[in-house]
């Protein structure tokens, strides 16, 4: 795959991902969190919901969260989750290029 094709096919749209994650968190918790808000210290998320977030991101964006990425700090805010998804997708795209 050439770089142009890749950009055409799957441009990573951070804003859209942020929106989608926000919608999921809002539906599941019946709150309207800010993208920078720490979901765990503000009592929106708990340890049970944390795993729902992992599984949601994995299914919605076809990524696998494993090893050192499997830590709460990656899931604290909507922005940090979107950043994790962006990085994991970039990594798997780079892998499939090799």
């Amino acid at each position: 795959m050439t770089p142009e094709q890749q950009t055409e096919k799957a441009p990573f749209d951070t804003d859209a991902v942020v929106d989608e994650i926000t919608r999921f968190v809002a539906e599941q918790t019946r709150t309207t969190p800010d993208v920078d808000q720490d979901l765990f210290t503000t009592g929106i998320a708990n340890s049970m919901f944390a795993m729902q977030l992992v599984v949601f991101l994995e299914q919605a964006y076809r990524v696998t969260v494993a090893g050192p990425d499997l830590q709460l700090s990656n899931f604290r805010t909507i922005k940090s989750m979107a950043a994790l998804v962006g990085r994991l997708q970039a990594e798997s795209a780079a892998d499939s290029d090799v």
Partner: protein
Amino acid sequence: MDEQLIAIVGAGVMGTGISTLVVGAGLPVVLVDVDQGVLERATTAIANGLRHAQLTGALPPGRTPGELRTTLSLSDVAAADVVIEAVTELPDQKAQVLSAVSALVRPATPLISNTSGIPIDEMAAWVKNPDDLIGTHFMNPAYLISMVEVIRGPQTADRTVESVLSLLTRIGRRAVVVHDAPGFVTSRLLHPMINDAAQVVRAGTATVEDVDTLMQGCLGHPTGPLRTADLIGIDNLVDALEALYARTGDERCRPSELLLEKVRRGELGRKSGRGFYNYSEAQS
């Protein structure tokens, strides 16, 4: 000695969570159920549980999990050093499983029941060696909640208490040992409270969300009683309430019509995707 084999009978909500805890601590588990589909779902749930434990820091990173073997054959418990019974909270089913297990294991093998509230001494009548029998009340999810209630029956031997306490230490749990009674401490207090919460909703006093929010915000309850009902499994909650009601006569333990209705509709809580709340399909 340090690589004890733990047999767990019943691969539902609790059997799965306890298996996650034990293999996560590095010990091998043989997990028994009567339903192959249940065992397959349990295997997936245990893998997810291990990730969940790592995510929340409940499991130290880099430790190799113990081996998990699943089986439909109860006789595979014969080789175990400790057996944990976590089958449905129905006295007849527990009687059948406990008496079969006690005939299979070596003498002096601790036989642990994870019952929510059936007195240990009542179950003692079902086993070959009542001194080997003890209650250990893990909470759901067992791999996240570090405290367990240990119930010593009047016939439980000191050595049984000691070996169970040392196993619990080995798997990173803190224990409080209590005496035998219907519901022990935690179910005797929690179950009627959840039942009352359902009654409050049924009476129209407040919504499900408002009941939980008040219990969390005003009384420091970590999740709220109705979210806890969903976590427990409403079918199990009803069975446990019935068992308590039959043994205490306490009207607060008579299952609320709202709980019974949810069970009839298959709205069992997290395990079925819907209970007092809806859970995303992503829920493991």
